[in-house]
């Protein structure tokens, strides 16, 4: 789960990491009120779960509360398009209003997990405020990476090395050392999968603050953090996706014409690729899961059939624990609900009870196209959709 900047900072401040004075606002009047407490000298930042908002005009500095309010009015409720969003952009439903910092130095700090070495790693960079990828290209010598042994924690000699890179004065070195220890503890304790603070700001009066913060929480660990239940960022999800997820389906909505119903994440990705071969596009990723029952298959089919832009359905099942006859019966059940459905069901079923499934499906009036392998599936899809156009 990705967190908004204001949510991320909320967690950091609870872990005794300093953040700028600020508040999240859901309407322009609140922006005005808070900006006024800082004499109008504020930065207003659109809260969207995507990068590149600065360049896209989502972050602005003001010296009057009225201007800050005006900007908030203009951006709240609109969709912000950045280089990381699609053309639809991301809905701005809140803004973070913060004090302006007198910046003496900006640093970059992040922790994430390396799948290959199976370790968390800390990245520190003497230049903050820019994309780390940019810095990596311009001046890689400013970037230091240290792997962290999750059982031992950050080691003193690693901290010394990181601090030496920055050449900070002694008192700030000490603050930064404590800061790094604190963010590692926070990262581990709170089950983050990503923590990026860019920039860390050292102000001219010597404070060290997290001026921005991007946190991703490991979805698999949310069960042990009741405090995260308040971060319901689902409002930004597609409604169909939300409904599918609530039904326990692994569903991602896409832009194409071919609805996919598959068991297994790998096979589901492969099925998308099969659709892609045809020159047409998948309408979704959908893994019904290994332990799916008839209800889940029916739910899946219903969700897809209700998407009117979908022109064909591809069902790809490798029967194991999930038996093919269960899938066939689900199709019969859905036929009762959608007796007039004319879109074709291209079905590839293998494994447990696949022959029974074929028999079950013999008598339906749905447009069933049984295929024996993946290449045949894509050929059938292609010929059907090509003839339609």
């Amino acid at each position, binding site marked *: 789960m990705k967190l908004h900047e204001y949510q991320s900072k909320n967690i950091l401040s609870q872990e005794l990491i300093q953040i700028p004075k600020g508040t999240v606002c859901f309407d322009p009047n609140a922006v005005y009120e808070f900006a006024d407490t800082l004499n109008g000298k504020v930065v207003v930042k659109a809260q969207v779960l995507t990068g590149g908002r600065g360049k896209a005009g989502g972050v602005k500095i003001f010296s009057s509360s009225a201007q800050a309010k005006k900007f908030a009015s203009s951006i709240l409720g609109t969709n912000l398009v950045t280089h990381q969003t699609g053309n639809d952009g991301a809905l701005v439903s809140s803004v973070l209003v913060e004090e302006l910092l007198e910046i003496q130095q900006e640093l970059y700090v992040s922790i994430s997990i390396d799948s290959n070495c*199976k370790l968390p790693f800390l990245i520190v960079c003497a230049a903050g405020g820019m994309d780390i990828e940019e810095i990596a290209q311009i001046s890689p010598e400013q970037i230091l990476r240290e792997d962290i042994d999750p059982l031992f924690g950050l080691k003193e000699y690693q901290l010394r090395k990181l601090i030496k890179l920055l050449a900070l004065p002694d008192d700030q070195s000490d603050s930064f050392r404590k800061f790094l220890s604190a963010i590692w503890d926070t990262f581990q304790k709170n089950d983050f999968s990503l923590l990026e603070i860019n920039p860390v700001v050292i102000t001219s009066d010597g404070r060290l603050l997290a001026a921005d913060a991007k946190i991703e929480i490991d979805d698999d*660990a949310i069960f042990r953090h009741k405090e995260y239940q308040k971060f319901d960022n689902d409002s930004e999800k597609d409604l169909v996706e939300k409904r599918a997820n609530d039904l326990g389906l692994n569903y991602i909505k896409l832009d194409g014409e071919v609805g996919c119903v598959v068991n297994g994440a*790998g096979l589901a990705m*492969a099925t998308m690729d099969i659709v892609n071969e045809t020159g047409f596009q998948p309408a979704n990723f959908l893994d019904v899961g290994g332990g799916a029952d008839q209800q889940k298959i029916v739910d899946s089919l219903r969700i897809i059939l209700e998407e009117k832009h979908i022109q064909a359905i591809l069902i790809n099942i490798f029967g194991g624990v999930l038996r093919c006859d269960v899938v066939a019966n689900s199709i019969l059940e859905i036929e009762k609900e959608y007796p007039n459905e004319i879109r074709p069901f291209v079905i590839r079923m293998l494994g447990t009870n696949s022959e029974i499934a074929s028999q079950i499906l013999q008598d339906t009036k749905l447009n069933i196209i049984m295929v024996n392998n993946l290449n045949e599936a894509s050929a059938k899809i292609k010929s059907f959709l090509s003839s339609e156009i």
Partner: protein
Amino acid sequence: MSILINKETRLLVQGATGREGRFHSSKCLDYGTNVIAGVTPGRGGEVLLDEIPIYNTVEEAFEETNPNTSLIFVPPRFAADAIIEAADVGIHLIVCITEGIPVHDMVRVSSYLRNKDTILVGPNCPGVISPGDQCKVGIMPNDIHTPGRIGVVSRSGTLTYEAVFQLTMVGLGQSTCVGIGGDPVVGSSFVDILKLFNDDEATDAIIMIGEIGGSGEQLAAEYIKDELNKPVASLIVGQSAPAGRRMGHAGAIVTGNDALASEKIKALSSAGAAIIPRPGDIGVTIEEILKDN
């Protein structure tokens, strides 16, 4: 012969009395696996499927039955501890099926197992099967596999079955199939398994099935280029997946260049692996490279 498991495998099942544990213990037994004990805290003294004694702790099970392999079905929040418990008594191979273990648990487990003489396969994987030895430590369907000389290694369960099916269609069997799991942090990597296949006299060629996310396929490509002396055919799925979204597997997400299917295919191709162009071409591609070699 085979890798990881064989006729000498003495299997302990952790979480044996749960729905999944019970079902798959039975299937493993059916297949021919030597399932010798189960563990479920609080259920010690029971007997599962009329023949598998259940113990409260791995230590008790180990002392009584001396297993060398463990298969884990324990729920996510207890699974990391189950792995540690098995490693602490000295179980040599641990196969963890559980999906949804927190990634911080897995980095802790991985650090704990480093430099230890324990191999972890998974989590979030279908397990390992060696048809020639009629030994299965996992959840794959029993009847699709046939003994043969092709090794299969994959991040995905159902795609492994697909590969096996296509092999059968072209008349080829498997030496061992290993699902390494779809999580960001897993015990054994592609490289770990390729090394074992490289040393396995019973394996002639390898199918490697990767997907978007991470860069394990690139490390595999380096190993294939530098050290592997057997032909590899590789399928990478997720070419049409959107960036930034998790495609079912916690590890299947495009977050940078390396994570792209196209980059992985490029790396494997220039390392000399045969690229399987479409998911439907697994069988024919392996047939071709066997002819070439």
